[in-house]
């Protein structure tokens, strides 16, 4: 015990004396031991990085973020200088004072102006910035353009007249069912993916399933807003009858199959899954559109997830700046150079070779120079009409559009919601309020276990 304490003091002294020139960065984003190829890649990055920043010592310190290990590591000052987390976490970590305010460092590099405003919001509090994005996805509505054409739901240029609200979606779906026989929407109700998609629908009706009240997290599954959202699903089945034959047998993969093979016209999906209906399930690459998730009476949201980089509260400014420069070398920063452009081009050609829509990555960064370089790189291999995607990209770059998953026990929440969905799509007489009351009763103890220890 005593030995440890002495050693620690010594180490602190040394760092203090040397900090003017030398910086040590413990890299929590180092790959785990078994990934030999990724480690070789990072060894290359370190070499490249040290050519420019010889004063920085990079120390591999693989760390996989986990809620149960994080707090003890943070409190004992053992977190690496930079680590990955999930987009559900920043606000919790900021409130707990575990992470460093990096506003000055980010601004010095000019990155604040290049970040997606909605992503920036998720990592900021009171105007201060606490993280930068690695990558992200956001849900949208995927559309089978062929079916829209068959149903006469296209404008003069042949673009689908897609629904802007959930109300419109029900009607559009009905038209498709009547005119083509295909389902209007593929709704998932088999496993947790059902609840996952449903949260995005329910937000538009004003539902918010978890909230903090007086320091305690409470579930809100049986609110009037949630009832309205479930009632809407029930109507899709019994009033409009526009779903696929058996939603309780539909999961993430079968949904893309229904969409891709023309058995359903609309399906909730993200921009990183455009290969699923096309390459995997055979839909012509030109017959897919990705549009914003419809709005409801209480707004329009896109469920997003992904990975932010964050820094522990005890990191120094020099350490943070060095770590940000390392991200540049990794190609995770909003920089445009010959290699990033060549990489974007090659990626686009590969997608084209595979019959996958060549569309931009999720705009976690919105630097105009980067977006322009990306557009130019993708243009050479363009295999889709970008008008089928533009509205989606515009929507998710809007402030306040992105919303992360509910913060605690999300999988358990989805399981409960899926049970409710299963009941309302199989039982015409299902009592929505009673089902949600039961779900609420089931879920609160699980939320307590996860959040109110």
């Amino acid at each position, binding site marked *: 015990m005593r030995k440890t304490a002495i050693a620690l003091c010594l180490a602190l002294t040394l760092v203090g004396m040397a900090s003017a020139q030398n910086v040590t960065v413990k890299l929590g984003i180092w790959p785990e031991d*078994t*990934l*030999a*190829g990724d480690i*070789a*890649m990072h060894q*290359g990055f370190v070499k490249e990085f040290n050519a420019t920043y010889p004063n920085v010592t990079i120390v591999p310190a693989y760390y996989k973020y*986990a809620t*149960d290990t994080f707090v003890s590591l943070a409190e004992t000052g053992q977190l690496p200088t930079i680590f990955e987390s999930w987009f559900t976490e920043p606000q919790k970590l900021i409130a707990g004072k575990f992470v460093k305010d990096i506003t000055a460092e980010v601004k010095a590099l000019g990155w604040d102006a290049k970040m997606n405003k909605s992503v920036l919001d998720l990592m900021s509090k009171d105007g201060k910035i606490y993280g930068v994005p690695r990558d992200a996805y956001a849900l949208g509505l995927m559309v089978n353009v062929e079916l829209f054409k068959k149903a006469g739901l296209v404008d003069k240029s042949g673009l689908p007249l897609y629904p802007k609200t959930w109300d419109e979606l029900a009607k559009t779906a009905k038209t498709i069912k009547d005119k083509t026989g295909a389902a209007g929407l593929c709704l998932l109700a*088999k*496993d947790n993916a059902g609840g996952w998609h449903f949260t995005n629908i329910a937000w538009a009706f004003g539902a918010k399933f978890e909230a903090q009240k007086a320091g305690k997290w409470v579930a809100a599954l049986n609110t009037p807003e949630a009832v309205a959202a479930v009632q809407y699903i029930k109507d899709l089945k019994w009033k409009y009858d526009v779903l696929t034959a*058996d939603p309780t*047998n539909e999961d993430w993969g*079968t949904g893309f*199959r229904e969409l891709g093979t023309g058995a359903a016209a609309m399906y909730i999906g993200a921009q990183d899954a455009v290969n699923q209906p096309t390459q995997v399930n*055979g839909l012509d690459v030109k017959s897919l559109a990705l549009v914003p998730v419809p709005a409801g009476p209480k707004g329009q949201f896109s469920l997003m997830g992904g990975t932010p980089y964050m820094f522990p509260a005890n990191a120094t400014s020099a350490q943070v700046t060095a770590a940000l420069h390392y991200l540049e070398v990794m190609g995770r920063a909003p920089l445009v150079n*010959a*290699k990033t452009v*060549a*990489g974007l*081009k*090659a*990626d686009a*050609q*590969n997608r084209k*070779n*595979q019959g996958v829509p060549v569309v931009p990555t999720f705009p976690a960064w919105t630097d105009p120079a980067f977006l322009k370089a990306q557009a130019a790189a993708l243009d050479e291999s363009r295999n889709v009409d970008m008008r089928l995607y533009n509205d989606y990209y515009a929507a998710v770059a809007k402030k306040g559009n992105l919303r992360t998953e509910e913060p605690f026990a999300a*999988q358990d929440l989805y399981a409960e919601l899926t049970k409710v969905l299963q009941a309302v799509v199989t039982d015409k007489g299902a009592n929505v309020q009673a089902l949600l009351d039961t779900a609420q009763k089931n879920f609160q103890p699980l939320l307590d276990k996860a959040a109110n220890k």
Partner: protein
Amino acid sequence: MTRSAAIYVYLLSAAILVFAAGCATAGAGPKAGAGSREQGSGASGGLRIEEPEARGEKRPLVLVHYMPWFQAPPIAAGYGFHWHQGGAVFDPFATLPDGRANIASNYYPLTGPYDSRDGKALEYQAALMKMSGIDGVVFDWYGIDEALDYGPIHESTLAMIAVLKAAGLAYAICYEDQSIGRMIEAKHLTRDGALAAAKKTFDWLQENWFADEAYAKLDGRPVVLCFGPQYFKDAAQWNEILSVDGPRPWLVCLDDQGSAVADGSYDWPPMWASEGGALSRDRLVSYLNGFYERQSAKPHLVATAFPGFFDIYQKAGSGRSYGFLDYAEGATFELTLGAAMRARPDIIQIATWNDYGEGTVVEPTIEHGYRELEVLQDLRRRFEADFPYDYSDLRAPIELFKARQSAAGGADRRKSIGAVYDAIFANSPDAYRAALAAAKIKTDFGVSPYLRERAAPSAALDPSLAVFDPAGRENLAFRMPIVYTSNIYAFTGDKAVDGDLSSYWEGAANSYPDSLTVDLVSSRRLGTAVLKLNPKRIWGPRTQRIEVLSSEDGKEFVPLAPERDYPFDPAANGNAVAIPLGVAARYLRLVFSGNSGAGAGQLAELEIYGE
């Protein structure tokens, strides 16, 4: 539903199936018919399984889910995928300090890695099944096509069936309809031909196996499990596939799948319910309760028992882990078997006999010894008090296997070993004991694996030294953008420039020419290209036909080295080939038009060095 009136049976601690931890492999087993065991504590706590409405108590048919998918020397030239999982981390040719082969598994079979066509291994397995009261095998089966590795799997299945029939054991299949999708991907089938291919497979089954009296049946209908369905999702498709010239097969699908067509459902370790990488006991119990409740009103039931789940995929670099289910000193097997028995099944499927990749094995291993086979023997004794074998008998087959491996003793020795197996298979316990004594085979209660001689470290060729770059020059292609015309599965082109010899690119099957084009971002003087495959021996010799071209602008490509055959051989050149370039260019393209070792071009690494 009669749920409110139903009697809930709480399994506090199951009676006969439960035994105290630790006694199974270390202590002496009972003599035949010695009666019940010491009871464990709370092994089945939390199980809440209704007495089924539709099924009475009977002795279930115990079938082990069996993987006929292993290849090993000397039957095969090298070790198959399932012993090395790609070979990035595990190489069964290598011998660990304790004499074990370095296989891709968290468990080690007492026999060491075997070939599923090797008679010595198959008779060992069948003898163990006989002596533990197992009734037979459910084969994990991929059909009759000669595509991918399905040919050897089918061959192995046929070999094992011959042994099973000689031993008086039963069999059934678990059809992997995902094989259809895989064959389409490999261009062995077209989408339009998918249904006809499956139909043909089932017609073959009808002709060859379904009518066999050793094939397991329910109500006179052959039992077919399906690991899915994963490819055919519509009832109409299955109706066509199942309309064979004989009684319609009794189709049993994975729980929650194929509801439109299945006659029943079976469960499987519900690893999807894992949280934080592990499946907790609570979640498992809750799943089992739900599964058996759903089966309550069904006339027949196939229930599954499993000892745990500990896969090697992530460690082997061949995929992500599906999760972890603790073996819990045998308690997980007790729990799942106890639950299965409570539901009064017609068939108990043991998952698995030998899936070493997923670590669900009950075949004897160094780690767990004979524990699960002893539990199954106890189960058999519960219905058949005079079952003729005890725990010590389970130790005989490995000694027979070792004796078979050794050449000593010649023909006489072989004959005396054969006599022991013959007696076991002929249900003659007395003759077995006499033959065992005559063959001078001794058993004890230990766990006694067959291990290799510890090999002296070999002065193997180190390819990273044998092939470049002696001057320490930089590999210009490392992590550069690369365009590939096609790929199969996850073997994408970027794997050829990732600096990792264990990962590789492979083009789509039978779609020559395949090409790789690397972009060096700026024009460079190029001296040499080095093309590498994984240097390990599991990547056996092959030749690839390759043309090399270069370009300054990525549009106009000029020929640099004409098409020719390049030999890749781990022993001769460390699976690496050097091609002189001598040109200034920004882009380099390799066009593959033949490969004697696969249906497409393959490359683990493309390295380019300046002049």
